């Protein structure tokens, strides 16, 4: 390769190891998992190859350049140089799963038409060796007309070999349409190109063959062509091109595909050797149980129940330990530093706010650990298949399952993952209901309130009421998402239904290094992102809740019986006064003004609620007696009536509010970006917040009257 900086694009079917190759080449940590559609946007990195720094782009997986989904369209447009600030790639690394070569070469045969140099990378050679698949690379290279190299992307030495191969190969674009033998298809293709695409459109020249073939196959325009003038002429030309094929006895819809597979057969016939084994593999045997119409949904529900029970039980000792560290550090700072504003700010503002959130790090880590295991094994795709029938009934699609499950971790990657849904209606409904899935930011609020107000009594030997409540809240989120989808379905025009067709990857043991690295990354992101906003809010809140100062005389004259000076001070602070203004609005839900302040701050991010409460209760508490937030909530009383502020009904109402309200600015921003409109995020905010208010009201009113 010429020693100048180049743009190298990684292209291939979903789940062929593109992101693994990308990570190995660039040293980045792009997420990888065992289900189709994990990469939904372009990822860019750099790699030094042959002493030159090159740009490397990881494109979303695609089965074909005839895109049907947004992620496939992104891949195609990047390849033909449609993006404004991005050059067309100088080299394509076509990554293929060598254990499923014929199917993977279908896309490669389309890449050969784009007039870009291509190197074919036969990945997963380790698995191929186990399956006794042998490839004659030289023969395959001669047949396809592109350089070929075999690698196992997990092996460092193979990546070095790949880099050397790229550096030394002469880059030459392959001959376009080498697969095409049919004279009639060539005639039809030439007609569409010459009479419509070349004179009437500004599509990049490299894409003319691909677009012409797509038009002939589909027989109609999509939105790409509707912007051009002379549409009538275009439709007429396409019709004539299809007639050429029909008169020759060929089916215009299938002619191109069949020709490409014939070409692939010719290329691989002598170049590959594989023992044919028609017996069912372990994956097939597992699938016959896991996707069973009765056992499948039971297994799915059991997996979720076990996951949430484990999160709650296993994380407890670690949480207690972190709690102890923050309490003891707070005590130490309070007793060591000279009393004054800085002491108060550190103990009641920074440490209280941060400690209130970091305590939930073990649960976040366990949650992501389980999600990455489900992704890594390949179970996610099965969950989508098992749930498709049910999801379709409520207005969603089987493909909605993976984004919705991703929503357990965070709504943002879930919303991005909806790009794999072909149908616009299915996609927008999935986006609109996805924030109901209980994301990790809700976890601190749930965990705090459950630990404080739900008994830890054991049920059926292994479960506890706390674990079951935790599970029930997650189920509640799922049910509300499904109900909302069923309602929305009535408001959207039905259009053409997109049936469920999905590739199920083979089951694999998760790559443990990847799982642990991803979990560590997510844990760090949680601490960093939550920490930044929580420390800032805690400091501001500490100021608002600590000033103006009240004097002892005023306290002695106006305080309720038994009210401490700290409580009186808080009640008359800026934050206290603001909280009392909004209190009448939230009182019917069982919330006092302190919770009200927490609700306001948590609209920035849900987990801020816990930090806010911790800061408020630290300011209110006696300096001599630093205890955990849980204990503070249990012991908090109304200074006027002396009754406890929190009851089980209050806790349930608050959890329901958090389960339903749209309290995440980042989610609103990403919905705006994905839908290209403020209409959808606004509608989402309004309907979710209204629903949260009404459901909390009902919960508290029923709960407190029982």
């Amino acid at each position, binding site marked *: 390769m010429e020693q100048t900086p180049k743009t190298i694009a990684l292209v291939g079917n979903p789940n062929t190891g593109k992101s693994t190759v990308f990570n190995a080449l660039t040293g980045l940590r792009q997420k990888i998992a065992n289900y189709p559609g994990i990469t939904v946007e372009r990822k860019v990195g750099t790699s030094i190859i042959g002493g030159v720094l090159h740009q490397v782009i990881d494109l979303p997986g695609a*089965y*074909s350049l*005839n895109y*049907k989904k947004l992620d496939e369209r992104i891949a195609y447009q990047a390849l033909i140089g449609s993006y404004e600030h991005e050059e067309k790639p100088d080299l394509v690394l076509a990554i293929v*799963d060598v*254990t*499923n070569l*014929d*199917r993977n070469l*279908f*896309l490669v045969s389309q890449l050969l038409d784009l007039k870009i140099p291509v190197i074919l990378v036969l990945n997963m050679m380790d698995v191929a060796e186990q399956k006794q698949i042998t490839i004659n690379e030289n023969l395959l290279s001669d047949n396809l007309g592109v350089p070929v190299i075999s690698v196992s992307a997990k092996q460092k030495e193979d990546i070095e070999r790949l880099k050397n191969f790229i550096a030394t190969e002469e880059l030459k674009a392959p001959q376009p349409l080498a697969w095409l033998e049919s004279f009639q298809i060539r005639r039809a293709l030439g007609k569409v190109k010459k009479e419509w695409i070349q004179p009437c459109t500004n599509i990049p020249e490299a894409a003319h063959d691909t677009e012409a073939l797509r038009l002939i*196959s*589909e*027989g109609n325009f999509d939105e790409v062509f509707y912007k051009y003038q002379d549409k009538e002429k275009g439709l007429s030309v396409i019709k004539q091109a299809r007639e050429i094929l029909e008169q020759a006895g060929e089916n215009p*819809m*299938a002619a191109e*595909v*069949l020709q490409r*597979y014939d070409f692939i057969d010719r290329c691989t016939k002598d170049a590959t050797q594989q023992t044919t084994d*028609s017996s*069912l593999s372990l*994956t*097939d045997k597992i*699938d*016959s149980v896991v*996707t*069973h*119409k009765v056992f499948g949904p039971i297994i799915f529900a059991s997996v979720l129940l076990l996951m949430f029970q484990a999160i709650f039980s296993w994380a407890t000792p670690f949480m207690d330990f972190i709690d102890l560290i923050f309490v003891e550090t707070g005590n130490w700072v309070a007793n060591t530093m000279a009393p004054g504003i800085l002491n108060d700010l550190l103990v009641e503002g920074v440490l209280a706010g941060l400690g209130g959130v970091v305590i939930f790090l073990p649960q976040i880590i366990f949650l992501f650990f389980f999600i990455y295991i489900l992704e890594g094994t390949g179970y996610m*795709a099965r969950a*989508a*298949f098992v749930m*498709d*029938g049910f999801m*379709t009934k409520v207005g969603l699609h*089987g493909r909605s399952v993976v984004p919705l499950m991703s929503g357990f971790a965070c709504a943002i990657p879930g919303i991005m993952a909806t790009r794999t849904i*072909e149908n616009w209606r299915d996609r927008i409904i999935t986006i609109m209901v996805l924030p109901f899935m209980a994301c990790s930011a809700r976890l601190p609020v749930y965990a705090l309130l459950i630990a404080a107000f739900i008994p830890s009594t054991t049920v059926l030997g292994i479960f506890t009421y706390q674990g079951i409540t935790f599970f029930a809240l997650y189920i509640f989120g799922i049910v509300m998402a499904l109900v909302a989808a069923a309602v929305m379905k009535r408001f959207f025009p039905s259009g*053409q*239904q997109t*049936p*469920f*067709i*999905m*590739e*199920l*990857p*083979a089951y694999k043991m998760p790559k443990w290094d990847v799982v642990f690295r991803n979990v560590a990354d997510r844990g760090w992101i949680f601490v960093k992102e939550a920490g930044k906003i929580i420390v800032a809010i805690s400091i501001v809140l500490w100021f608002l809740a600590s000033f103006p100062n009240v004097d002892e005389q005023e306290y002695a004259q106006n305080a309720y019986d038994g009210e401490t000076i700290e409580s009186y001070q808080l009640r008359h602070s800026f934050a206290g006064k603001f909280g009392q203004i909004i209190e009448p609005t939230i009182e019917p839900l069982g919330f006092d003004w302190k919770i009200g302040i927490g609700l306001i701050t948590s609209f920035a991010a849900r987990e801020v609620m816990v930090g806010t409460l911790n800061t408020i209760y630290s300011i209110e508490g006696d300096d001599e007696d630093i205890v955990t937030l849980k204990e503070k909530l249990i012991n908090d009383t109304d200074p006027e009536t002396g009754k406890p502020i929190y009851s089980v009904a209050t806790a349930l109402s608050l959890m329901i509010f958090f389960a339903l309200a749209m309290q995440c600015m980042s989610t609103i921003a990403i919905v705006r970006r994905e839908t290209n409109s403020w209409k959808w995020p606004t509608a989402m905010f309004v309907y979710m917040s209204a629903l949260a208010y009404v459901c909390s009201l009902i919960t508290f009113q029923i709960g407190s009257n029982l």
Partner: protein
Amino acid sequence: MYPLNHTKEGEQVIVKCIDCHCDDVCRLNELGCVEGATGIIISNQKDVIFKVGETRLAINNNIAKSILVSPN
């Protein structure tokens, strides 16, 4: 010939004809399910898991009905 959803688990079949919407035909073709391809039924419980080559395809009942196959 009979529809794919009328097959039994473990049955080996040849795809004879795919008669559904153009987009779905294209998607099936791209995934290797083309006329003449041979495969084995992994699971058939209304929806079907059909293994063509090394590709396991999860196909819902509506599409399975439109894929006509014959025994291999």
